[in-house]
């Protein structure tokens, strides 16, 4: 750019497999209200990931209804809320999504059974959608969901059924422990991939640098909620850059932490972020809900490598230690030992 400013780009790729306990399971309950609306209850803890929004979308899609008529239970009671193994490992949408689909199918089967009785039809000829159960070949033969979801009352008062409660769970198929000797095993299911790049501007006088632009392209399998997906990846990219560029604990010789508070443990703040570009490709994961793949953590992974590649190129020296403080780059350049 000028005598002491260099612009450079670096690129990194990642793959990640969500290894969890082989028996880590997730459960879901969907229950009807009298007006035909639904309650959705899962053990996923909402920590800003938007997972519960996605689960409501998944349920609405399978029930062929509007997500507006789904009441998502945010609070979790460890007494009775169905277990969700842990809100970790980019497994929220995957595990709980599959559990919700199973719970939805359970509820649909119950709705069709009672509708079959009322409509005097074979349940396999019936379909759920838009607040009704109807005959696939003749939609005029139909009954409103709200008239059967709390049981059906015949004109003379005879009643059948009751409140419909669907339950579902999911556990990953054929997981096993890795062999401690060889590392062989199947600790997690699908592999997810992506590529990321960072553009920087380095000042070659003091090795300070600006983060100009960061790009991530992830295989999302299927983007279930574009804004949520973008937000997840962008947030993770910011964390990855923060980790690469400044986050670390510094220890004394005796192991005491020098920077034990946020005064000295710096994270990237709003004004310091580069321009973010987030794109997706979609190659469906056959086990995932509607083909979706894990997204939560993946936006972080290759950011340090991409940044290090860009800075290595700009500074003309191999940088393979994090974080990449300007002084770290200067030391590498001078051939000085790192502290």
């Amino acid at each position: 750019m000028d005598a002491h400013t260099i612009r450079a780009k670096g690129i990194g790729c990642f793959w990640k497999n969500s290894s969890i306990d082989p028996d880590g399971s997730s459960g879901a309950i969907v229950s009807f209200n009298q007006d035909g609306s639904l309650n959705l209850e899962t053990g996923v803890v909402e920590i800003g990931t938007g997972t519960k929004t996605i689960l409501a979308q998944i349920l609405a899609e399978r029930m062929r209804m509007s997500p507006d008529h789904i009441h998502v239970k945010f609070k979790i009671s460890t007494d009775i809320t169905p277990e969700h193994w842990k809100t970790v490992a980019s497994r929220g949408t995957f595990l709980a999504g599959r559990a919700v689909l199973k719970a939805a199918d359970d509820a649909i089967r119950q709705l069709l059974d009672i509708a079959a009785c009322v409509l005097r039809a074979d349940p396999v000829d019936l379909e759920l959608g838009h607040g009704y159960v109807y005959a696939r070949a003749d939609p005029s033969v139909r009954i409103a969901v709200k008239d059967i979801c709390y049981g059906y009352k015949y004109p003379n008062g005879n009643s059948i059924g009751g409140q419909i409660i669907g339950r579902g769970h999911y556990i990953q198929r054929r997981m096993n422990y890795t062999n401690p000797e060889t590392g062989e095993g199947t600790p997690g299911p699908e592999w997810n991939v992506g590529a990321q790049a960072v553009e920087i501007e380095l000042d070659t006088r003091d090795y300070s640098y600006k983060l100009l632009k960061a790009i991530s392209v992830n295989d999302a399998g299927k983007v279930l909620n574009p804004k949520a997906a973008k937000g997840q990846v962008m947030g993770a990219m910011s964390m990855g850059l923060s980790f690469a560029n400044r986050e670390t604990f510094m220890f004394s010789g005796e192991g005491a932490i020098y920077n034990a508070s946020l005064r000295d443990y710096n994270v990237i703040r709003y004004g310091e972020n580069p321009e973010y570009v987030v794109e997706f490709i979609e190659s469906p994961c056959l086990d995932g809900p509607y083909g979706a793949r894990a997204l939560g953590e993946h936006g972080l992974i290759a950011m340090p490598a991409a940044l290090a590649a860009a800075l290595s190129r700009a500074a003309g020296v191999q940088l393979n230690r994090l974080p990449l403080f300007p002084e770290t780059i200067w030391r590498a350049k001078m051939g000085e030992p790192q502290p």
Partner: protein
Amino acid sequence: MIPYNFDYYAPATVAEAAALFQRLDAEGKQPLYYSGGTEIITIGRINRIYTEAVIDLKRIPDCRQAAVQSGKLVLGSALTLSELYDSRVFPLLGETGAGVADRTSRNKITFGGNICSKFIYREAVLPLLLTDSEVRIAGPGGARQTPIAEAFDGQLRLGRGEFVVQTVTDESYARMPYVTIKKRKVAAIDYPLVTVAALRTSEGIRIAFSGVCAFPFRSQAVERMLNRRELPLRDRIDQSIALFPAPVISDIKGSAAYRELVLKLVMEQTMRALGGE
């Protein structure tokens, strides 16, 4: 959580504050003057400061003053760094103060609190040093007005129970060309790796430093060297660093060697900006 209880006093006058201090001190309450309170609260939480009584200075009108009186800029110690910046009355001070912490913290951090801070930076003192300002100090023994060069040697020398009421600066300084540059380790908000504030007067360039040595300072010897325009600028800079009153520090923000590299760049930039090459 602050792991101890303390009483809170909000005196309305300078004399009341000083008298309160004396009484509470005699009662063994280990009183502290309390201005923005950010340091007392955050350091108190980790048990590095202890008190049983704080005396808030923010209700004392003198400590909140910002006025020009017969050519002198009078600034109260309880003005926040944000207020000093926003008012533009003394841009060198406002901008140097604006390098401290973040805006939200600066809405609380005060001028006096920064100067009397236990941390080694006290960046707001640099403009006072550059402008030969005076400090109005009050305490149980009465009030005094002292040149900053006498009152401040690395830190403000205050007698028991004394506190800063105001600073007094010749208004003409507020119109002189200045530079204030802060370099941090990596983040946009952090303590300084190097802070340099400088002023061009008719006699030459004045320069003061924070974050470089274990205390903020202005040095006549350093300034004399830097103003020797018969020598090349880089030589002057190298030689002036040898005249610093203490070694350049090494800490978690940076090693002495890297600090010195950054320091030289900032000094060069400063000198050039003020036409001192």
